[in-house]
Protein backbone atom coordinates (compact mmCIF):
# COMPACT_ATOMS: atom_id res chain seq x y z
CA UNK A 1 0.00 0.00 0.00
CA UNK A 2 2.87 2.31 0.92
CA UNK A 3 4.54 1.48 -2.39
CA UNK A 4 1.39 2.42 -4.31
CA UNK A 5 1.16 5.68 -2.35
CA UNK A 6 4.83 6.44 -3.03
CA UNK A 7 4.42 5.74 -6.76
CA UNK A 8 1.29 7.90 -6.79
CA UNK A 9 3.08 10.76 -5.04
CA UNK A 10 6.05 10.56 -7.43
CA UNK A 11 3.73 10.49 -10.45
CA UNK A 12 1.89 13.55 -9.17
CA UNK A 13 5.20 15.35 -8.56
CA UNK A 14 6.33 14.49 -12.08
CA UNK A 15 3.08 15.71 -13.63
CA UNK A 16 3.26 18.90 -11.57
CA UNK A 17 6.84 19.56 -12.72
CA UNK A 18 5.84 18.84 -16.33
CA UNK A 19 2.94 21.29 -16.02
CA UNK A 20 5.20 23.93 -14.50
CA UNK A 21 7.65 23.50 -17.39
CA UNK A 22 4.91 24.09 -19.96
CA UNK A 23 3.67 27.18 -18.13
CA UNK A 24 7.28 28.44 -18.13
CA UNK A 25 7.64 27.60 -21.85
CA UNK A 26 4.36 29.33 -22.67
CA UNK A 27 5.36 32.49 -20.77
CA UNK A 28 8.69 32.53 -22.61
CA UNK A 29 7.00 32.22 -26.04
CA UNK A 30 4.48 34.92 -25.16
CA UNK A 31 7.16 37.38 -24.05
CA UNK A 32 9.36 36.51 -27.03
CA UNK A 33 6.58 37.34 -29.47
CA UNK A 34 5.76 40.55 -27.59
CA UNK A 35 9.42 41.69 -27.43
CA UNK A 36 10.60 40.72 -30.92
CA UNK A 37 10.16 44.25 -32.32
CA UNK A 38 11.86 45.87 -29.30
CA UNK A 39 15.46 46.98 -29.57
CA UNK A 40 16.15 46.11 -25.92
CA UNK A 41 15.62 42.40 -26.59
CA UNK A 42 18.19 42.44 -29.38
CA UNK A 43 20.66 44.33 -27.17
CA UNK A 44 20.20 41.60 -24.54
CA UNK A 45 20.52 38.82 -27.12
CA UNK A 46 23.91 39.96 -28.47
CA UNK A 47 26.02 38.80 -25.48
CA UNK A 48 24.10 35.53 -25.54
CA UNK A 49 24.94 35.06 -29.22
CA UNK A 50 28.57 35.36 -28.19
CA UNK A 51 28.19 32.89 -25.32
CA UNK A 52 26.19 30.34 -27.29
CA UNK A 53 27.82 30.75 -30.68
CA UNK A 54 31.42 31.80 -30.41
CA UNK A 55 32.27 29.72 -27.37
CA UNK A 56 30.51 26.56 -28.61
CA UNK A 57 31.73 26.63 -32.19
CA UNK A 58 35.14 24.97 -31.57
CA UNK A 59 33.70 21.97 -29.67
CA UNK A 60 30.93 21.58 -32.23
CA UNK A 61 33.47 21.54 -35.07
CA UNK A 62 35.65 19.02 -33.26
CA UNK A 63 32.55 16.85 -32.73
CA UNK A 64 31.65 17.11 -36.42
CA UNK A 65 35.17 16.21 -37.45
CA UNK A 66 35.26 13.00 -35.40
CA UNK A 67 31.76 12.00 -36.50
CA UNK A 68 32.79 12.36 -40.16
CA UNK A 69 36.04 10.44 -39.59
CA UNK A 70 34.33 7.57 -37.76
CA UNK A 71 31.46 7.29 -40.23
CA UNK A 72 33.89 7.06 -43.15
CA UNK A 73 36.19 4.58 -41.41
CA UNK A 74 33.33 2.30 -40.37
CA UNK A 75 31.45 2.33 -43.67
CA UNK A 76 34.33 1.94 -46.12
CA UNK A 77 35.09 -1.80 -45.71
CA UNK A 78 31.49 -2.92 -46.12
CA UNK A 79 30.82 -0.65 -49.08
CA UNK A 80 34.13 -1.61 -50.70
CA UNK A 81 33.31 -5.31 -50.33
CA UNK A 82 29.95 -4.71 -52.04
CA UNK A 83 31.55 -2.53 -54.72
CA UNK A 84 29.71 0.57 -53.54
CA UNK A 85 32.67 2.58 -52.22
CA UNK A 86 32.07 5.42 -54.71
CA UNK A 87 28.71 5.96 -53.00
CA UNK A 88 30.28 6.30 -49.60
CA UNK A 89 29.56 10.02 -49.60
CA UNK A 90 25.83 9.30 -49.64
CA UNK A 91 26.03 7.36 -46.40
CA UNK A 92 28.45 9.68 -44.64
CA UNK A 93 26.85 12.96 -45.65
CA UNK A 94 23.20 11.99 -45.40
CA UNK A 95 23.77 10.52 -41.94
CA UNK A 96 25.54 13.72 -40.95
CA UNK A 97 23.00 16.15 -42.35
CA UNK A 98 19.83 14.34 -41.26
CA UNK A 99 20.81 12.65 -38.04
CA UNK A 100 24.20 12.79 -36.39
CA UNK A 101 25.01 16.43 -37.16
CA UNK A 102 21.90 17.89 -35.50
CA UNK A 103 21.80 15.34 -32.67
CA UNK A 104 25.46 15.56 -31.69
CA UNK A 105 25.59 19.33 -32.13
CA UNK A 106 22.51 19.42 -29.88
CA UNK A 107 24.18 17.22 -27.28
CA UNK A 108 27.30 19.40 -27.31
CA UNK A 109 25.14 22.51 -27.03
CA UNK A 110 23.28 20.96 -24.08
CA UNK A 111 26.59 20.13 -22.38
CA UNK A 112 28.48 23.31 -23.12
CA UNK A 113 25.73 25.96 -23.06
CA UNK A 114 22.86 24.26 -21.24
CA UNK A 115 24.98 23.53 -18.18
CA UNK A 116 26.41 27.05 -18.15
CA UNK A 117 22.96 28.64 -18.44
CA UNK A 118 21.57 26.51 -15.61
CA UNK A 119 24.57 27.32 -13.41
CA UNK A 120 24.31 31.05 -14.20
CA UNK A 121 20.58 31.34 -13.52
CA UNK A 122 20.82 28.94 -10.58
CA UNK A 123 23.49 31.09 -8.97
CA UNK A 124 21.39 34.19 -9.62
CA UNK A 125 18.48 32.50 -7.87
CA UNK A 126 20.58 31.44 -4.89
CA UNK A 127 22.07 34.91 -4.50
CA UNK A 128 18.55 36.44 -4.71
CA UNK A 129 19.29 38.26 -7.97
CA UNK A 130 16.09 36.86 -9.50
CA UNK A 131 14.08 38.10 -6.52
CA UNK A 132 15.84 41.46 -6.82
CA UNK A 133 14.63 41.72 -10.42
CA UNK A 134 11.08 40.84 -9.41
CA UNK A 135 11.13 43.39 -6.59
CA UNK A 136 12.17 46.07 -9.08
CA UNK A 137 9.08 45.30 -11.12
CA UNK A 138 11.05 43.40 -13.73
CA UNK A 139 10.31 39.94 -15.10
CA UNK A 140 13.32 37.56 -15.03
CA UNK A 141 11.75 35.46 -17.78
CA UNK A 142 11.62 38.52 -20.04
CA UNK A 143 15.18 39.71 -19.40
CA UNK A 144 17.04 36.49 -18.71
CA UNK A 145 15.19 33.58 -20.29
CA UNK A 146 13.92 35.09 -23.55
CA UNK A 147 17.36 36.30 -24.81
CA UNK A 148 19.02 32.99 -23.89
CA UNK A 149 16.22 30.94 -25.43
CA UNK A 150 16.32 33.02 -28.62
CA UNK A 151 20.11 32.69 -28.90
CA UNK A 152 19.88 28.88 -28.57
CA UNK A 153 16.99 28.73 -31.03
CA UNK A 154 18.71 30.81 -33.71
CA UNK A 155 22.25 29.54 -33.32
CA UNK A 156 21.61 25.80 -33.06
CA UNK A 157 21.01 25.47 -36.85
CA UNK A 158 24.09 27.56 -37.59
CA UNK A 159 26.25 25.47 -35.27
CA UNK A 160 24.81 22.30 -36.81
CA UNK A 161 25.74 23.64 -40.25
CA UNK A 162 29.38 23.97 -39.15
CA UNK A 163 29.25 20.52 -37.57
CA UNK A 164 27.98 19.09 -40.88
CA UNK A 165 30.54 21.02 -42.91
CA UNK A 166 33.54 19.83 -40.92
CA UNK A 167 32.11 16.30 -40.73
CA UNK A 168 31.64 16.18 -44.51
CA UNK A 169 35.20 17.37 -45.04
CA UNK A 170 36.55 14.79 -42.56
CA UNK A 171 34.57 12.00 -44.27
CA UNK A 172 35.91 13.07 -47.67
CA UNK A 173 39.44 13.14 -46.23
CA UNK A 174 39.19 9.49 -45.11
CA UNK A 175 37.38 8.24 -48.21
CA UNK A 176 39.36 10.08 -50.88
CA UNK A 177 42.76 10.84 -49.37
CA UNK A 178 43.19 7.74 -47.21
CA UNK A 179 41.14 5.03 -48.88
CA UNK A 180 41.57 6.15 -52.47
CA UNK A 181 37.91 6.59 -53.43
CA UNK A 182 37.71 8.89 -56.48
CA UNK A 183 36.64 12.36 -55.47
CA UNK A 184 34.30 13.16 -58.36
CA UNK A 185 31.87 10.21 -58.00
CA UNK A 186 32.05 10.63 -54.18
CA UNK A 187 30.54 14.11 -54.50
CA UNK A 188 28.38 13.25 -57.53
CA UNK A 189 26.48 10.51 -55.69
CA UNK A 190 26.28 12.67 -52.57
CA UNK A 191 24.68 15.52 -54.54
CA UNK A 192 22.41 13.09 -56.34
CA UNK A 193 21.09 11.50 -53.14
CA UNK A 194 20.90 14.57 -50.92
CA UNK A 195 17.79 16.66 -51.43
CA UNK A 196 16.79 20.02 -50.06
CA UNK A 197 14.33 18.06 -47.93
CA UNK A 198 17.17 16.23 -46.17
CA UNK A 199 18.89 19.52 -45.32
CA UNK A 200 15.52 20.88 -44.16
CA UNK A 201 15.01 17.86 -41.87
CA UNK A 202 18.37 18.54 -40.20
CA UNK A 203 17.52 22.24 -39.93
CA UNK A 204 14.10 21.60 -38.35
CA UNK A 205 15.61 19.16 -35.89
CA UNK A 206 18.35 21.58 -34.86
CA UNK A 207 15.85 24.39 -34.29
CA UNK A 208 13.79 22.04 -32.09
CA UNK A 209 16.87 20.93 -30.16
CA UNK A 210 18.17 24.48 -29.70
CA UNK A 211 14.87 25.80 -28.37
CA UNK A 212 14.39 22.82 -26.07
CA UNK A 213 17.92 23.07 -24.66
CA UNK A 214 17.47 26.79 -23.96
CA UNK A 215 14.13 26.29 -22.25
CA UNK A 216 15.19 23.31 -20.14
CA UNK A 217 18.47 24.95 -19.09
CA UNK A 218 16.73 28.14 -17.95
CA UNK A 219 13.85 26.28 -16.31
CA UNK A 220 16.20 24.11 -14.28
CA UNK A 221 18.17 27.14 -13.09
CA UNK A 222 15.17 29.01 -11.69
CA UNK A 223 14.32 26.80 -8.69
CA UNK A 224 17.97 25.95 -7.96
CA UNK A 225 18.76 25.32 -4.29
CA UNK A 226 21.55 26.96 -2.35
CA UNK A 227 25.14 25.75 -2.25
CA UNK A 228 27.54 24.14 -4.67
CA UNK A 229 25.60 20.87 -4.42
CA UNK A 230 22.35 22.63 -5.36
CA UNK A 231 23.85 24.26 -8.45
CA UNK A 232 25.65 21.04 -9.40
CA UNK A 233 22.45 19.03 -9.10
CA UNK A 234 20.52 21.55 -11.21
CA UNK A 235 23.19 21.39 -13.95
CA UNK A 236 23.14 17.58 -14.00
CA UNK A 237 19.34 17.50 -14.13
CA UNK A 238 19.40 20.08 -16.89
CA UNK A 239 21.82 18.09 -19.06
CA UNK A 240 20.06 14.76 -18.51
CA UNK A 241 16.63 16.27 -19.25
CA UNK A 242 17.96 18.07 -22.37
CA UNK A 243 19.71 14.90 -23.61
CA UNK A 244 16.57 12.77 -23.22
CA UNK A 245 14.47 15.52 -24.82
CA UNK A 246 16.86 15.66 -27.80
CA UNK A 247 16.52 11.92 -28.38
CA UNK A 248 12.75 11.97 -27.93
CA UNK A 249 12.31 14.97 -30.25
CA UNK A 250 14.65 13.33 -32.75
CA UNK A 251 12.50 10.19 -32.78
CA UNK A 252 9.29 12.19 -33.07
CA UNK A 253 10.58 14.41 -35.87
CA UNK A 254 12.27 11.57 -37.73
CA UNK A 255 9.02 9.56 -37.72
CA UNK A 256 6.72 12.42 -38.62
CA UNK A 257 8.98 13.99 -41.26
CA UNK A 258 9.70 10.62 -42.87
CA UNK A 259 5.96 9.94 -43.00
CA UNK A 260 5.36 13.37 -44.50
CA UNK A 261 8.07 12.85 -47.12
CA UNK A 262 6.68 9.47 -48.15
CA UNK A 263 3.19 10.93 -48.40
CA UNK A 264 4.39 13.85 -50.55
CA UNK A 265 7.06 12.27 -52.75
CA UNK A 266 6.88 8.50 -52.16
CA UNK A 267 9.63 6.21 -50.88
CA UNK A 268 13.11 6.92 -52.28
CA UNK A 269 15.76 4.16 -52.13
CA UNK A 270 19.17 5.64 -51.36
CA UNK A 271 21.34 2.97 -52.90
CA UNK A 272 20.23 1.13 -56.01
CA UNK A 273 22.03 -1.84 -57.48
CA UNK A 274 24.49 -1.48 -60.35
CA UNK A 275 26.97 1.34 -60.67
Amino acid at each position, binding site marked *: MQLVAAIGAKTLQGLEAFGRFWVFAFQTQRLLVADLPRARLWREVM*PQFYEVGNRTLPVIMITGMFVGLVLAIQSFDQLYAAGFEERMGVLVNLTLVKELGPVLAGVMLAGRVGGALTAELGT*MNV*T*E*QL*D*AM*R*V*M*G*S*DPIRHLVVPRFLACLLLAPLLTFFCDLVGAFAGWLIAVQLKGVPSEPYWYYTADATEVWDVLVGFIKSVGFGGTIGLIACYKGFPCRAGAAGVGRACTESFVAAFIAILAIDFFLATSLQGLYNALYGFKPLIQGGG
Partner: protein
Amino acid sequence: MTDQIQQATVRPGGEAGANAAPVIELIDVYKSFGRLEVLRGVDLVLHPRETTVIIGESGVGKSVVLKHIVGLLRPDRGEVRYHGRSIGEMNAGELARLRMNFGFLFQLGALFDSLTVAENVGFPLVEQGRRSRAEIERVVTEKLRMVGLDGIQSKRPADLSGGQRKRVALARAIALDPEIILYDEPTTGLDPVRADVINELILKLRREIDATGIVVTHDMASANKVADRILMLHEGKFIFDGTSREIAEAGDERIRRFIEGRASEKDLRSLRQES
Protein backbone atom coordinates in the same frame (compact mmCIF):
# COMPACT_ATOMS: atom_id res chain seq x y z
CA MET B 1 -8.16 48.07 -11.17
CA THR B 2 -5.01 49.82 -12.36
CA ASP B 3 -6.39 53.20 -11.35
CA GLN B 4 -7.05 51.86 -7.88
CA ILE B 5 -3.42 50.85 -7.52
CA GLN B 6 -2.09 54.11 -8.87
CA GLN B 7 -4.37 55.91 -6.46
CA ALA B 8 -3.27 53.69 -3.61
CA THR B 9 0.40 54.26 -4.29
CA VAL B 10 0.17 58.01 -3.77
CA ARG B 11 1.91 58.76 -0.52
CA PRO B 12 -0.49 59.73 2.22
CA GLY B 13 0.48 63.21 3.28
CA GLY B 14 0.32 64.92 6.63
CA GLU B 15 0.12 62.37 9.40
CA ALA B 16 3.07 60.28 10.38
CA GLY B 17 3.62 57.40 12.72
CA ALA B 18 1.06 55.39 14.62
CA ASN B 19 -1.78 57.90 14.09
CA ALA B 20 -1.66 57.67 10.30
CA ALA B 21 -3.45 55.04 8.21
CA PRO B 22 -1.34 51.90 7.91
CA VAL B 23 0.86 51.42 4.87
CA ILE B 24 1.20 47.67 5.26
CA GLU B 25 -0.95 45.19 7.14
CA LEU B 26 -0.35 41.50 7.64
CA ILE B 27 -3.49 39.84 8.93
CA ASP B 28 -3.29 36.37 10.47
CA VAL B 29 -0.61 35.20 8.00
CA TYR B 30 0.40 31.54 7.95
CA LYS B 31 3.21 30.15 5.84
CA SER B 32 4.75 26.68 5.67
CA PHE B 33 7.53 25.23 3.53
CA GLY B 34 6.78 21.53 3.24
CA ARG B 35 6.26 20.36 6.78
CA LEU B 36 8.07 23.32 8.30
CA GLU B 37 5.57 25.82 9.66
CA VAL B 38 7.34 29.19 9.62
CA LEU B 39 4.63 31.77 10.22
CA ARG B 40 1.74 30.86 12.50
CA GLY B 41 -0.78 33.66 12.40
CA VAL B 42 1.37 36.78 12.10
CA ASP B 43 -0.39 40.13 12.56
CA LEU B 44 1.51 43.29 11.74
CA VAL B 45 0.55 46.91 11.04
CA LEU B 46 3.20 49.28 9.66
CA HIS B 47 2.68 53.03 9.79
CA PRO B 48 4.17 55.61 7.41
CA ARG B 49 7.62 57.08 8.08
CA GLU B 50 8.31 54.73 10.96
CA THR B 51 11.36 52.51 11.04
CA THR B 52 10.26 49.14 12.34
CA VAL B 53 12.87 46.57 13.22
CA ILE B 54 12.00 42.88 13.28
CA ILE B 55 14.39 40.84 15.39
CA GLY B 56 14.55 37.13 16.06
CA GLU B 57 16.81 34.11 15.90
CA SER B 58 18.23 32.93 12.57
CA GLY B 59 15.76 30.88 10.56
CA VAL B 60 12.76 32.10 12.52
CA GLY B 61 11.08 33.58 9.41
CA LYS B 62 12.02 37.27 9.50
CA SER B 63 12.96 37.39 5.81
CA VAL B 64 9.80 35.42 5.02
CA VAL B 65 7.79 38.30 6.51
CA LEU B 66 9.62 40.77 4.23
CA LYS B 67 9.03 38.63 1.15
CA HIS B 68 5.31 38.51 1.94
CA ILE B 69 5.20 42.30 2.08
CA VAL B 70 6.47 42.65 -1.51
CA GLY B 71 4.48 39.69 -2.80
CA LEU B 72 7.52 37.47 -3.46
CA LEU B 73 5.78 34.91 -1.26
CA ARG B 74 2.05 34.36 -0.91
CA PRO B 75 0.57 33.38 2.45
CA ASP B 76 -0.99 29.92 2.82
CA ARG B 77 -3.66 31.63 4.89
CA GLY B 78 -4.30 35.24 5.85
CA GLU B 79 -3.84 38.46 3.95
CA VAL B 80 -1.25 41.13 3.17
CA ARG B 81 -2.54 44.63 2.43
CA TYR B 82 -0.87 47.67 0.95
CA HIS B 83 -2.80 50.88 1.75
CA GLY B 84 -5.82 48.69 2.46
CA ARG B 85 -5.63 46.81 -0.85
CA SER B 86 -5.02 43.06 -0.74
CA ILE B 87 -1.78 42.15 -2.54
CA GLY B 88 -3.14 38.64 -3.18
CA GLU B 89 -5.85 40.08 -5.45
CA MET B 90 -3.39 41.88 -7.72
CA ASN B 91 -2.43 40.50 -11.12
CA ALA B 92 1.18 40.34 -12.32
CA GLY B 93 1.12 43.81 -13.92
CA GLU B 94 -0.38 45.44 -10.85
CA LEU B 95 2.10 43.69 -8.60
CA ALA B 96 5.00 44.88 -10.78
CA ARG B 97 3.74 48.48 -10.52
CA LEU B 98 3.19 48.10 -6.79
CA ARG B 99 6.77 46.94 -6.30
CA MET B 100 8.07 50.17 -7.80
CA ASN B 101 7.02 51.73 -4.46
CA PHE B 102 9.38 49.45 -2.55
CA GLY B 103 13.13 49.42 -2.22
CA PHE B 104 14.56 46.10 -1.08
CA LEU B 105 18.08 45.70 0.29
CA PHE B 106 18.85 41.98 0.10
CA GLN B 107 21.03 40.22 2.63
CA LEU B 108 23.89 39.64 0.16
CA GLY B 109 23.14 42.74 -1.89
CA ALA B 110 21.86 40.73 -4.88
CA LEU B 111 23.72 42.98 -7.30
CA PHE B 112 23.74 41.72 -10.89
CA ASP B 113 27.21 40.31 -11.49
CA SER B 114 27.16 40.98 -15.22
CA LEU B 115 26.36 44.69 -14.86
CA THR B 116 28.48 47.61 -13.72
CA VAL B 117 27.68 49.56 -10.56
CA ALA B 118 26.02 52.30 -12.66
CA GLU B 119 23.94 49.76 -14.56
CA ASN B 120 22.92 48.08 -11.30
CA VAL B 121 21.80 51.33 -9.68
CA GLY B 122 20.12 52.44 -12.90
CA PHE B 123 18.31 49.13 -13.42
CA PRO B 124 15.00 50.09 -11.73
CA LEU B 125 15.05 53.43 -13.56
CA VAL B 126 15.45 51.69 -16.91
CA GLU B 127 12.68 49.26 -15.95
CA GLN B 128 10.41 52.14 -15.09
CA GLY B 129 10.94 53.32 -18.67
CA ARG B 130 10.13 56.97 -18.08
CA ARG B 131 13.54 58.63 -18.04
CA SER B 132 16.14 59.59 -20.59
CA ARG B 133 19.65 58.17 -20.47
CA ALA B 134 21.06 61.49 -19.19
CA GLU B 135 18.49 61.64 -16.42
CA ILE B 136 19.23 58.06 -15.37
CA GLU B 137 22.93 58.91 -15.24
CA ARG B 138 22.18 61.94 -13.05
CA VAL B 139 20.01 59.93 -10.63
CA VAL B 140 22.63 57.15 -10.44
CA THR B 141 25.30 59.69 -9.50
CA GLU B 142 23.00 61.32 -6.95
CA LYS B 143 22.11 58.00 -5.28
CA LEU B 144 25.70 56.81 -5.20
CA ARG B 145 26.69 60.11 -3.64
CA MET B 146 23.99 59.60 -0.98
CA VAL B 147 25.62 56.32 0.04
CA GLY B 148 29.09 57.86 -0.21
CA LEU B 149 30.29 55.95 -3.25
CA ASP B 150 30.24 58.34 -6.21
CA GLY B 151 33.04 57.60 -8.67
CA ILE B 152 32.82 53.81 -8.79
CA GLN B 153 30.17 53.71 -11.53
CA SER B 154 32.22 51.63 -13.96
CA LYS B 155 33.29 48.98 -11.44
CA ARG B 156 31.75 45.49 -11.33
CA PRO B 157 30.23 44.03 -8.13
CA ALA B 158 33.09 41.51 -7.97
CA ASP B 159 35.55 44.42 -7.56
CA LEU B 160 33.78 45.76 -4.45
CA SER B 161 34.17 44.95 -0.76
CA GLY B 162 31.25 43.52 1.23
CA GLY B 163 30.39 46.93 2.70
CA GLN B 164 30.59 48.66 -0.67
CA ARG B 165 28.32 46.02 -2.24
CA LYS B 166 25.70 46.67 0.45
CA ARG B 167 25.92 50.42 -0.11
CA VAL B 168 25.59 50.04 -3.88
CA ALA B 169 22.61 47.73 -3.28
CA LEU B 170 21.17 50.41 -1.02
CA ALA B 171 21.69 53.04 -3.74
CA ARG B 172 19.78 50.76 -6.12
CA ALA B 173 17.03 50.22 -3.54
CA ILE B 174 16.45 53.98 -3.25
CA ALA B 175 16.81 54.76 -6.96
CA LEU B 176 13.08 55.26 -7.40
CA ASP B 177 12.66 57.20 -4.13
CA PRO B 178 10.53 54.41 -2.71
CA GLU B 179 7.79 54.88 -0.18
CA ILE B 180 8.94 51.83 1.80
CA ILE B 181 12.47 50.44 2.15
CA LEU B 182 12.93 46.86 3.28
CA TYR B 183 16.32 45.97 4.74
CA ASP B 184 17.08 42.25 5.01
CA GLU B 185 19.95 41.76 7.48
CA PRO B 186 21.69 45.00 6.38
CA THR B 187 24.67 44.63 8.73
CA THR B 188 25.22 40.87 8.54
CA GLY B 189 28.74 39.94 7.46
CA LEU B 190 30.17 43.43 8.09
CA ASP B 191 32.66 44.48 10.75
CA PRO B 192 31.25 46.77 13.49
CA VAL B 193 32.60 49.94 11.86
CA ARG B 194 31.12 49.18 8.45
CA ALA B 195 27.92 47.96 10.10
CA ASP B 196 27.61 51.33 11.78
CA VAL B 197 28.07 53.08 8.42
CA ILE B 198 25.03 51.14 7.18
CA ASN B 199 23.07 52.08 10.32
CA GLU B 200 23.92 55.74 9.78
CA LEU B 201 22.82 55.40 6.17
CA ILE B 202 19.46 53.96 7.22
CA LEU B 203 18.96 56.97 9.53
CA LYS B 204 20.13 59.38 6.82
CA LEU B 205 17.75 57.90 4.25
CA ARG B 206 14.88 58.19 6.67
CA ARG B 207 15.65 61.86 7.11
CA GLU B 208 16.30 62.62 3.46
CA ILE B 209 13.73 60.61 1.54
CA ASP B 210 11.19 60.28 4.32
CA ALA B 211 10.60 56.59 3.68
CA THR B 212 8.96 53.97 5.86
CA GLY B 213 11.62 51.46 6.87
CA ILE B 214 11.39 47.80 7.82
CA VAL B 215 14.64 46.31 9.03
CA VAL B 216 15.12 42.61 9.64
CA THR B 217 18.14 41.88 11.79
CA HIS B 218 19.55 39.90 14.67
CA ASP B 219 22.08 42.64 15.40
CA MET B 220 20.79 44.35 18.58
CA ALA B 221 23.21 47.30 18.28
CA SER B 222 21.78 48.04 14.85
CA ALA B 223 18.19 47.51 16.04
CA ASN B 224 18.62 49.90 18.97
CA LYS B 225 20.21 52.55 16.76
CA VAL B 226 17.70 52.69 13.90
CA ALA B 227 14.39 51.52 15.39
CA ASP B 228 11.34 53.59 16.20
CA ARG B 229 9.67 50.32 17.04
CA ILE B 230 11.00 46.80 17.61
CA LEU B 231 9.11 43.55 17.05
CA MET B 232 10.42 40.15 18.02
CA LEU B 233 9.45 37.09 16.00
CA HIS B 234 9.59 33.79 17.84
CA GLU B 235 8.22 30.41 16.75
CA GLY B 236 6.07 31.92 14.00
CA LYS B 237 4.52 34.77 15.99
CA PHE B 238 5.44 38.22 17.24
CA ILE B 239 6.04 38.03 20.99
CA PHE B 240 7.13 41.64 21.49
CA ASP B 241 6.08 45.00 20.04
CA GLY B 242 7.56 48.15 21.57
CA THR B 243 10.39 50.67 21.62
CA SER B 244 14.07 49.93 22.16
CA ARG B 245 13.76 51.24 25.73
CA GLU B 246 10.81 48.92 26.38
CA ILE B 247 12.60 45.86 25.01
CA ALA B 248 15.59 46.60 27.24
CA GLU B 249 13.25 46.38 30.24
CA ALA B 250 11.31 43.33 29.02
CA GLY B 251 11.07 40.48 31.49
CA ASP B 252 10.23 37.64 29.09
CA GLU B 253 13.06 35.10 29.29
CA ARG B 254 13.01 34.45 25.48
CA ILE B 255 13.48 38.19 24.82
CA ARG B 256 16.12 38.66 27.51
CA ARG B 257 18.12 35.73 26.18
CA PHE B 258 18.05 37.15 22.67
CA ILE B 259 19.02 40.73 23.53
CA GLU B 260 21.75 39.58 25.90
CA GLY B 261 22.98 36.94 23.44
CA ARG B 262 22.67 34.03 25.87
CA ALA B 263 22.25 30.40 24.80
CA SER B 264 19.22 28.60 26.24
CA GLU B 265 19.56 26.02 29.01
CA LYS B 266 18.34 23.39 26.55
CA ASP B 267 21.14 24.24 24.07
CA LEU B 268 23.74 24.25 26.86
CA ARG B 269 22.54 20.86 28.12
CA SER B 270 22.86 19.33 24.65
CA LEU B 271 26.38 20.77 24.35
CA ARG B 272 27.39 19.27 27.71
CA GLN B 273 26.00 15.88 26.64
CA GLU B 274 27.94 15.99 23.37
CA SER B 275 31.21 16.80 25.10
